[in-house]
């Protein structure tokens, strides 16, 4: 097993070198062939990339759901580049797919290509991330998480937990990538929720860029600058996981001395929650495949769909995490 892995690594090394040579050629290997001729619904989907475990689970969910729903999926990986995504959407239009869905890499700059899709009569569904187009008729619906709600759920749980507290509760916040929608919205939702209790106070708030290493580095300084931290609110699991190490190194017990609330519920985060190191996670589910397929069928059939559809999500306490962990997909 180990030697096979080693072999894989070496093969990967060579593949990478080959890849470097043929970078110009890659991109839309999945989009060839004709389509739209038979009665099977054809869905063209352009994914952001494979930047995180969350995104990989998102991709898997969409692929599996398409297969289960009998939908022909044309999948494109944009590798975090808007131009790749625009190219992919134009390809989908040329191939006359029935429905186009995509997770926009960035918020702006989509009007032209969305107009082309509209002119071609192909309905578009946005998943996970929104676009800032003024013309809302350019796409049928936006299926994704409500980040404000996630922040609010996290805040509401804390308000509930600290109802009896008489003294001030010092909160530190690890924000996501500065300016990104999830960071802005989760911050906003959380701040609104904790306003219900004047004892709850955010004493420090910094960007950890959604990364473990940065979350840890920021937490180290938080701990040194603020001797009495009661609560950590991290905008994703990874930053919380990084902060765990900083808290332990400072001689404190995560989950007990410092209450930790995060968002996402990826596997490592759920494990930490089940182990009692985290206290609460508001889920941000990547498993929107089945909902997307249902929507695709509806818009194909010309049915009216709401302009905004939320992903089905929940929250986890330590006990719920223990119960849910064995069946987690990501």
């Amino acid at each position, binding site marked *: *097993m*180990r030697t096979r*892995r*080693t072999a894989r*690594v*070496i093969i*990967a*090394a060579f*593949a*990478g*070198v080959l*890849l*470097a040579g043929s*970078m110009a050629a890659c991109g839309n290997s999945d989009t060839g062939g004709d389509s739209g001729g038979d009665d099977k619904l054809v869905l063209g989907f352009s994914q952001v990339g*494979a*930047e*995180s*475990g969350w*995104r*990989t689970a998102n991709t898997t969910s969409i692929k599996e759901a398409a297969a289960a729903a009998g939908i022909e999926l044309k999948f494109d990986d944009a*590798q975090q580049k808007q131009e790749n995504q625009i190219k992919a959407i134009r390809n989908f239009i040329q191939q006359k797919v029935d429905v186009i869905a995509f997770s926009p890499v960035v918020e702006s700059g989509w009007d032209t290509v969305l107009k082309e899709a509209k002119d071609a009569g192909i309905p578009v569904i946005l998943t996970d991330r929104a676009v800032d187009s003024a013309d809302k008729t350019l796409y049928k619906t936006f299926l994704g998480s409500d980040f404000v709600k996630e922040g609010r759920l996290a805040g509401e749980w804390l308000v509930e937990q600290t109802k009896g507290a008489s003294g001030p509760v010092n909160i530190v916040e690890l*924000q996501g990538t*500065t*300016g990104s929608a999830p960071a802005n919205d989760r911050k906003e939702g959380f701040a609104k929720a904790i306003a219900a209790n004047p004892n709850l106070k955010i004493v*420090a*708030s*910094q*960007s950890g*860029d959604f*990364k*473990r*290493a940065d979350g*840890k*580095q*920021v937490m*180290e*300084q*938080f701990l*040194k*600058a603020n001797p009495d931290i009661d609560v950590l609110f991290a905008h994703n699991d*990874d930053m919380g*996981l*990084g902060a765990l*190490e900083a808290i332990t*190194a*400072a*001689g404190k017990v995560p989950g007990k001395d410092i209450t930790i609330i995060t968002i996402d519920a990826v596997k*490592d985060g759920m494990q930490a929650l089940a182990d009692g190191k985290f206290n609460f996670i508001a889920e941000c589910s990547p498993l929107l495949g089945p909902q997307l397929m249902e929507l695709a069928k509806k818009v194909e059939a010309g049915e009216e769909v709401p302009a905004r559809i939320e992903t089905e999500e929940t929250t986890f306490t330590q006990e719920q995490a223990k119960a849910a962990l064995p069946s987690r997909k990501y």
Partner: protein
Amino acid sequence: MNTLTDRFRPLTGHRLFWPALVLVVMLAANTVYRPGFLSVEVKEGHLYGTPVDILRLSAPLILVALGMTLVIATGGIDLSVGSLCAISGAIACLHISEASDQNSLSTVFTALALAFGVALVLGAWNGLLVAVIGIQPIIATLILMVAGRGLAQLITEGQIITINSGPYRAIGLGHVLTLPLAIIIAVAAALLVAALTRRTALGLIVESVGGNAEASRLAGIRSGRIVFLVYVVSAACAAIAGFMMTANVSSADGNAAGLWIELDAILAVVIGGTSLAGGRFSLGGTILGALIIQTLTTTVYAMNIDPQTSLLFKAVVVIAVCLIQSPAFRARVSRRRGATTPRPTTRQPEKEQVSA
């Protein structure tokens, strides 16, 4: 006044004076903001405090910047170091995560050897492109910078690999004689590079290649071989830095590990006073540069500067550092201010001073 300036001239004329001053000013500003900033205590048998954090966190950057210094001294540049950090960390963590006993020393050493070996091969690939095939260094290493990120994600299958290995963790978080192991490794690497370049003719040869590769070749130096070598050394440094980064958080993130560290490393080299045009280099300056960059980052967190303005804050400090270091700029400022007491000499002679 004039005699005072003259007395301090040997000090202020030293090429490392200005970066060192910047570092001291930053630490002082932090101490004013929070008096406990510089305090260090012993916790669980090792030193604990912000200065220790700065040293530990700057270790990977010091390593990468050391390799970068040599590459830049030959007139080249290595953009692939960030991706190499990610690849080496990913390979090591993948190997450890597959093992039955993650705490076994042999597993960890095999993982390190495997990852280090792959990094050397990739460094040789860079060297080959630059030295043998003659591609511009910025383009040659750009290939691996882009493809390497993909390669790292291929190895991790797009996931974050979490490991639970005591020995591997020690590379990033362990302590020896109460000091973080990471900084000891970085200092050891720095001493090794310094010994190799300053106690032998190697440093001089590197500088001569950077000054004029063709002239060096005609003088009997195998320029190509030296250029090839520095890319391999740079990759080796990046690999060790990659181990530290992944060990620091016990996980390999192919997408985020070492992201943009090539830019920080280039900045550290420049702050340290090495010219991007190649030629003379300063290892001590590079280390100071790396410490300045890490202190800057820590300052943002310690002072809780708003994330939306922190990038601007960093940029302003970097510009200030670069301006202070520029002899032309300093000469202009002092000429304007001290119009009545003109400075007799320009700052040309200081360029002749050599320091390791």
